[in-house]
């Protein structure tokens, strides 16, 4: 199965494609597309690629609706009474908090969490070449881990089958968004996006400000009802006069526990420079492993950890959503049937061999990034292999002629489809692979039937 996968990403085969489909290239050149239109992950883009959201936006509309409704009711029904009886600062404070909550929420939802673009075909092939030290065994699974030292501590880097690279430390693949995200914290359905390196501070400020807002509204509503009932009326009468307050009370009461709990939990995470992912998996817990296995990323100082996480420099987005897809790179996404490629290579030599290296390099220096879209080209074939028939195929990004690729991939993969299907079950959900690496490894050993000669790094 893996052999079939490697064939598909053979850079020589893929790189010939642009020359074979010159008519396609001409057609595509007339309509330059932006990279977000061909992004391979499961994301949605708005405002021509400026805003990014997970495809499953979860309950983001509910979150927004709850906040807007509760605050609207608060300002409409409680504030007039409280301004009259207490102070005018109440709606002012409420207003400031609402602004913070809503802007933080929108920033969390619409910011790229730190998605890593998928490896180009050349990179993926290079990685496989590097690990293929055991020789020419035909059925070898790709290696799954690589051990490195970070601050004198051994950390295992896992290989991502979807993105075709060894994941950097603290990076995890989100199965909902089908992307590797740096410093992956968790996928939050309430904000409809992953929380990762780039939007963690927004998420944190969202939950902190929401805690303040919820507590504030809760307190104000209680004060309101108390003040009303103190003026010689019963509580029931007070409630009847202001029914909206009850609605707010109920909403705030039920949400305040979880929000406060979440804020407390994330404050702990920020102070110890951990992610939710690492905390849940117990990666740096002292219970497992050697006695000196602490968190290698922590600065061992609460204040420094907080400052680094919340006030550190804002890293840039790596996926270049609004860049244009170079016309010749868009073509590999088109029919990638490698069988058709050889006849066209002779033509390419005749056409292309007249310039000097220097001209070539100068032109490349002046052009926009020409290989930026290789990731979009290559994984088109692999999702079929990985997901197999078990799941509905990942919805293809717009504009790519996937049926051709699926046909090609199916033709190539049919002899090994049995292996692909079984391994696909492991590849679909990285969480399972991470949680139980050994069983899957032994299973693939059985499938491939060549356990001793595999040449990969065995997992403990």
């Amino acid at each position, binding site marked *: 199965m893996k052999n079939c996968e490697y064939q598909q990403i053979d850079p020589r085969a893929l790189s010939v494609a642009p020359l074979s489909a010159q008519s396609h290239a001409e057609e595509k050149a007339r309509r330059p597309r932006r990279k977000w239109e061909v992004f391979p992950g499961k994301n949605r883009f708005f405002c021509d690629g400026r805003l990014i959201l997970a495809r499953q936006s979860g309950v983001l509309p509910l979150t927004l609706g709850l906040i807007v409704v509760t605050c609207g009711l608060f300002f409409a029904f409680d504030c007039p009474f409280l301004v009259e009886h207490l102070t005018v600062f109440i709606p002012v404070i409420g207003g400031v908090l609402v602004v913070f909550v809503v802007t933080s929420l929108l920033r969390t939802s619409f910011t790229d969490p730190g998605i890593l673009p998928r490896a180009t075909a050349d990179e993926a092939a290079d990685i496989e070449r590097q690990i293929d030290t055991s020789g020419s065994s035909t059925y070898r699974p790709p290696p799954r881990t690589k051990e490195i030292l970070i601050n004198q501590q051994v950390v295992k880097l896992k290989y991502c089958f979807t993105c075709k690279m060894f994941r950097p*430390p603290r990076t995890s693949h989100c199965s909902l968004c089908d992307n590797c995200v740096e410093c992956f914290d968790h996928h939050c359905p309430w904000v409809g996006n992953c929380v990762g390196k780039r939007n963690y501070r927004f998420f944190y400020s969202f939950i902190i400000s929401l805690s303040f807002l919820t507590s504030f509204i809760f307190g104000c509503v209680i004060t309101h009802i108390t003040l009303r009932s103190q003026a010689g009326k019963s509580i029931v009468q007070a409630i009847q006069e202001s029914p909206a307050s009850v609605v707010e009370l109920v909403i705030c009461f039920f949400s305040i526990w979880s929000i406060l709990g979440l804020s407390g939990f994330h404050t702990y995470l920020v102070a110890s420079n951990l992610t939710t992912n690492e905390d849940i998996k117990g990666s740096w817990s002292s219970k497992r492993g050697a006695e000196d296995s602490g968190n290698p990323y922590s600065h061992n100082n609460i204040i420094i950890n907080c400052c680094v996480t919340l006030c*550190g420099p804002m890293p840039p987005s790596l996926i270049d959503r609004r860049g244009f897809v170079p016309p010749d790179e868009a073509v590999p996404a088109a029919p990638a049937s490698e069988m058709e490629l050889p006849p066209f290579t002779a033509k390419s030599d005749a056409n292309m*061999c007249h310039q*000097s290296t220097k001209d*070539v390099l100068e*032109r490349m220096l002046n052009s926009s990034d020409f290989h930026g879209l290789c990731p979009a080209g290559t994984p088109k074939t692999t999702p079929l292999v990985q997901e197999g028939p078990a799941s509905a195929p990942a919805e293809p990004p717009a504009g790519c002629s996937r049926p051709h690729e699926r046909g090609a991939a199916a033709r190539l993969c049919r002899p090994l489809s049995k292996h692909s299907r079984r391994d696909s079950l492991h590849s679909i959900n990285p969480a399972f692979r991470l949680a139980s690496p050994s069983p899957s490894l032994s299973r693939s050993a059985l499938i491939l039937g060549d356990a001793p000669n595999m040449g990969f790094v065995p997992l403990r």
Partner: protein
Amino acid sequence: MAAEFHNLQEMQHSALLVTKVFIQRDYSEGTVCRFQNKFPSELNNRIERTLLEETVKTLNSYYVEAEKIGGQSYLEGCLACATAYIVFLCMETRYEKVLKKISNYIQEQNEKIYAPRGLLLTDPIERGMRVLEVSVFEDRGSSGSTPSSSMSSCSSAR
């Protein structure tokens, strides 16, 4: 550098060697952006070791500057937090400024040092900061018009 032109037949027979060498990230100091300063063996006879090492070292120092945690970054962070992060919409962050410097540096290095030797550095930001890609061209004067077609002509010539 004198551009050497060979005729087409000779070039077709000569099996143009075009490959890409990837310099991987060095995670020994955590998740900060750093590239390994290990000289790849494929470039042994293409470029002097010191030149490449100097380039990588300078790039690493640029990244350190971009990700430096100090007074200015705290100020930026606190200002952003205080304005509910709206300031990021108007202001270019320090990281972005340093990235521009890096891309100018890489372009300058390509023009002065790497292109004359038939090599080309690709800005790591275009590869998601995973690798520093060095494209190696057979410096025989004639080549394809894009790296992908060069590689195709290489593979076909084989």
